[in-house]
Each structure stands twice: as C-alpha cells, then as structure tokens.
C-alpha cells in the first residue's frame, strides 16, 4: 500500500483521477490553505454588500477573517479582522455601517481604510509606538462585474487577467439584473462534514442532477421540469483556464437578452401581469421576467465561488473534513419588488438548509467523505465525457458534453499547478 502522505502532490492528481488523500489528509489541507488560498484571488463580497461609504461586510479569505469595507473616500478595502495590539477581532457584525472599528479589548480604533486612528493612554508607550505601521493589515482588492476579490499575494496578476475567458460568462450572468444592476438579497449558510473540493466539483457536475434532485424535479410543473432537463438540451462544459470552467445546462438561457419575444412561461404569468399593471411596458416586462428565471449555466471560479444559475455559491474550507457553503440570493438592484420576491421564492424552493435541493446535495457530499474512509490507495475517477456539441465552446478551449467531468479536471490541474509551484 502506498503511503499517500509521502507521495509528491503532483502524483496525487492524474489527468483522469485524483487520489483519496486529497479529501482525507490534514497535511494536504494545511498546504492547500497556504499554497492556494493565500496565493490567489479569493471572492469576498459583492459590491451591493458595501453600497455606500463607511459600509462593511465581514468575510473570509481562506481561514482568515476579514472585513470588506468601503471607506469614506468610497474605496474598497479588505482588512484582516485583527487588532494590531493584542489580536482581538475588531468587528463581529455581519454587515452594516460604521465609520470606525474600535477594538473592544483596549480601545484601539481604526478608520474604515484600516488606518490606526487612536490609541487610548498612548503616553504609556513613551513615544515609541509606530502608529503609522500599525494599520489593520490590508489585502490587495479588485473587482469585476461587482464581484469583489482579495488576495494576500501583492504581486499577483490583475484580477481581470486571472479571470480571463471567465469574464464573458460573468458579463452574461449579470444580465439577471435586467438592466437595473444586480444586488444581493440574502443568503443561506450551511456546513457539511466533507472536504471543500467535493463542493467545488459539484458545481460543475450535471451528471448528479436528475438523480440527486429527482424530488425537486417532481415538484415542478411539466413546462418547468422540461427547462430543468439539464442533460437533454445539448449543453456542454468548457475549460476556461486557471481552474475556471463553465457548464452550460440550458443553452436557451445563456443570454437573457435574447429570445425576448418567446411566450412567457406559465409559472411567470402572474408576475408578468403584476408588472404590466405597475406600468412596465411589454418589452421591459419580458426582459424582467426572463431575468427573474435565471441563467442556464454554472460558472466555477477557482477556488471559492461560482455564479450558479441564479445565485452565488461560495465555499469556505473549515477543516479537511468540514466545509461551509453560502448560497447568496441575487436580484435586481432597484428593479420591481415583485420580481425580487419571485427570485427569493425560487431560491428558497431549491436552496438552503430546508430547500428541495440543498439538503440532498449536502447529504451526497457527506456520503463522499464517509465513503472515502474506505480504502487508502484508491482514486476518485474524473474521466467522464464525450465531445462537446459542434461549434459551442470557444475554439481552442478544452470542452466536453454537458455531463463531462471536464470542469473538475480543469480545477484539479490548477490545484496541481498551485500545489507544486
């Protein structure tokens, strides 16, 4: 039997399979936190979470608690949530408004850009305190399409270069704002006892959908059930580089500004009537209704976030066998409340701890972690896939059919690149 821990990381990921140790080995998990999460762009927030100056949201970069702030100059900051004196966290609220963060232990206070503002009884330092060097530690921060990413790696490539071809899909995803822009509407948060990469894989796994989500599909009307026939509509999976991938399940819902003259689905008839009664012109009603229905693809952005059909799916590694998932509901920023209400009801239907989909996903992932305890030198197979339908994926991109494990293979090649760098 191979001693997995002794194998070099490069040998644990092959083109078509990954080794059991990737889900089980605590030493590998520690190395991942350092080599991956401390070394790349990690999603922390959406701009609508920090809409005005002196607003904030607490978040994480890997295992590091951070505060995402918009300072009084309107600039975004991502700050380690740790007082520079004796390390107490300076903020324990989820989000809100604050013009200053005061450490509760000895009263050191910080501006929203992280600068140390005031130290009580500073005379006790005899003039030796270098206050200019004791700002909250600031990470590099950049945003694209309203999605805010941060990194510890100050000399990393610009976010837009890291995202590369994924940008096109982010542009398409944000059409769910129906011209109003996108804002977050709330979030479901849950943990499952399993490795973070199990969840990463799931977002690019159409194969499980009809099996795991049979009861969700059974709860839909016939027309909607056809829309969610994810394996039967000529979709595909495309490697977008840097571990990112897109899985198109419903090609008709790639561009939400196309096909606006198609009949309005029965399940949105009430909403369409309500919007018309509110005075929205027919063309705009159609645009809003189509946006409310959500996109037909999952965009996986390595390592911690996905634009998944109609929401952001965020993963946070807690331990080798514990992962926290947040499903962030999104809707129109300033659009009709009726549309956002429907968005929230649709989100509740599938997502969250008591949704018709999420609990079965979570149970499935837990079963993977339980199963992987059996056998020390076995592999998880990622070799599924046939050719992508003709002319769909961008030329030169590696691609496969909708249930191909192409996206997982892409993510694990990035894992290998970062773990062996």
């Amino acid at each position: 039997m191979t001693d997995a821990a002794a194998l070099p990381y490069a040998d644990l990921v092959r083109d078509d399979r990954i080794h059991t140790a990737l889900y089980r080995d605590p030493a590998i998990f520690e190395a991942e936190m350092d080599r991956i999460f401390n070394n790349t762009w990690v999603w922390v927030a959406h701009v609508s979470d920090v809409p005005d100056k002196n607003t904030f949201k607490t978040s994480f970069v890997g295992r590091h608690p951070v505060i995402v702030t918009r300072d009084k100059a309107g600039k975004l900051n991502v700050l380690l949530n740790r007082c520079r004196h004796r390390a107490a966290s300076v903020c324990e609220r989820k989000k809100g408004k604050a013009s200053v963060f005061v450490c509760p232990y000895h009263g050191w206070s910080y501006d929203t850009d992280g600068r140390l503002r005031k130290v009580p009884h500073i005379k006790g330092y005899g003039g030796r305190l270098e206050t200019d060097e004791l700002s909250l530690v600031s990470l590099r921060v950049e945003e694209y399409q309203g999605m805010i990413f941060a990194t510890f790696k100050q000399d990393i490539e610009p976010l837009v270069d890291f995202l590369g071809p994924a940008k096109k899909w982010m542009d398409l995803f944000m059409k769910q704002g129906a011209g109003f822009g996108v804002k977050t509407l709330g979030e479901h948060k849950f943990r499952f006892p399993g490795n973070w990469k199990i969840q990463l894989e799931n977002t690019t796994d159409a194969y499980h959908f009809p099996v795991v989500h049979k009861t969700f599909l059974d709860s839909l009307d016939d027309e909607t059930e056809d829309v969610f026939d994810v394996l039967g509509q000529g979709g595909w999976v495309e490697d977008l580089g840097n571990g990112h991938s897109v899985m198109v399940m419903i090609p008709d819902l790639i561009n939400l500004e196309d096909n606006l003259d198609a009949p309005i689905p029965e399940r949105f008839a009430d909403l369409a009537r309500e919007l018309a009664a509110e005075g929205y012109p027919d063309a705009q009603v159609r645009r809003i209704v189509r946006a409310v229905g959500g996109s037909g693809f999952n965009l996986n952005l390595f390592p911690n976030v996905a634009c998944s059909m109609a929401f952001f799916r965020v993963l946070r590694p807690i331990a080798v066998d514990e992962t926290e998932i947040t499903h962030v509901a999104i809707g129109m920023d300033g659009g009709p409340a009726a549309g956002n209400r429907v968005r929230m009801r649709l989100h509740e239907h599938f997502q969250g701890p008591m949704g018709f989909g999420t609990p079965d996903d979570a149970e499935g992932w837990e079963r993977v972690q339980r199963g992987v305890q059996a056998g020390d030198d076995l592999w998880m197979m990622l070799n599924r896939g046939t050719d992508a339908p003709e002319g769909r994926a961008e030329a030169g991109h590696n691609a496969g059919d909708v249930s191909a494990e192409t996206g997982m293979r892409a993510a694990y090649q990035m894992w290998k690149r970062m773990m062996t760098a």
Partner: protein
Amino acid sequence: MSALPTATEPVTLDEAIRFIWTETEILDRLAYREWLPLWTKTGLYVVPIDRDGGDPVEALNIVYDGAEMREARVKRLLSGFSMSSAPPARTARTTSRFVLESAGAGTARVRCAQILIEYKYGRTRTLGADLSYDLRRADDGTLRIERKVVQLLNSDDHLFGIGYLL
C-alpha cells in the same frame, strides 16, 4: 363529554398547548399526511433567516410555504427519493415556556420555546427555536394553524441540511 366549542369561542392557553403538543408529536413521528390538515387553506409556514421581525415575504427565508408548497414539501419528504430524508435524522422535540400573546373570537397567538434533538450517522445535534403560532378555529370548532413561524436561534448563522420538518 362536552360538545365542541363554536367557531368563535375564545381559545384558552391550555387548549393551545395541547394542540401544539399534538402537532409536534406528529412531526417527530414523520406523520406528515396528518400534519397537512392541521392548517387553514391560507396558512403560512415560515422559517425566517432574519431576526428583525420584518415581513418575511420581502426577505429571503429558509422556508416560506403556503398550502401548495407545504404539500409539495411533504410529498418530497415522504417520496423515498430524497437521500437526506430517506431516512431523515431521528428527532425528539419538546415545546415549553408557552405564552398566550393575544386571543380573540376563535383565534389566539401563542409563542413558546422548542428544543429539538436530532440524530443521524453517529451524530447528535440540537436546534433551539422560538415558535410563534397564530391559531384559528375551523367551522367545527377545532383548531387550525393560520401561521407558524420557527425562529431558529442560529437562523442567521451556518446550519446544516435539515431533512425533516420543524
């Protein structure tokens, strides 16, 4: 044996408590087909995330079910095809600390605390909650649920897959 009360007869705290105990026992037994008729047609079952007391229709919730969604949910949980609920965790729940908030003609608002223990896969977990019930008498005088709100203590923090009803 006394006759059933009329539809407008006031609801006593004692009567409300007995009704709620019956309901929670039905849930622990997974007898969801018996649970559905306890509701009025317009009844609303809510497990909110927010703790600000705002109108849940304008917020994202864990559960926001009218009659149709309740029926779909029960069908799903009993189908045998949902791996998180076939079987679900075993549960035992107790409700106590009852307060009769208000009572009108054939109606009452009652709140109470619930402690639920669940067990599955060698793991025992606790869910604490504040419950609020709006009860209303049906034409035959028996009680129905017009609104049930389950405010989990940790609703705005991380939860886990819940394969049963709260």
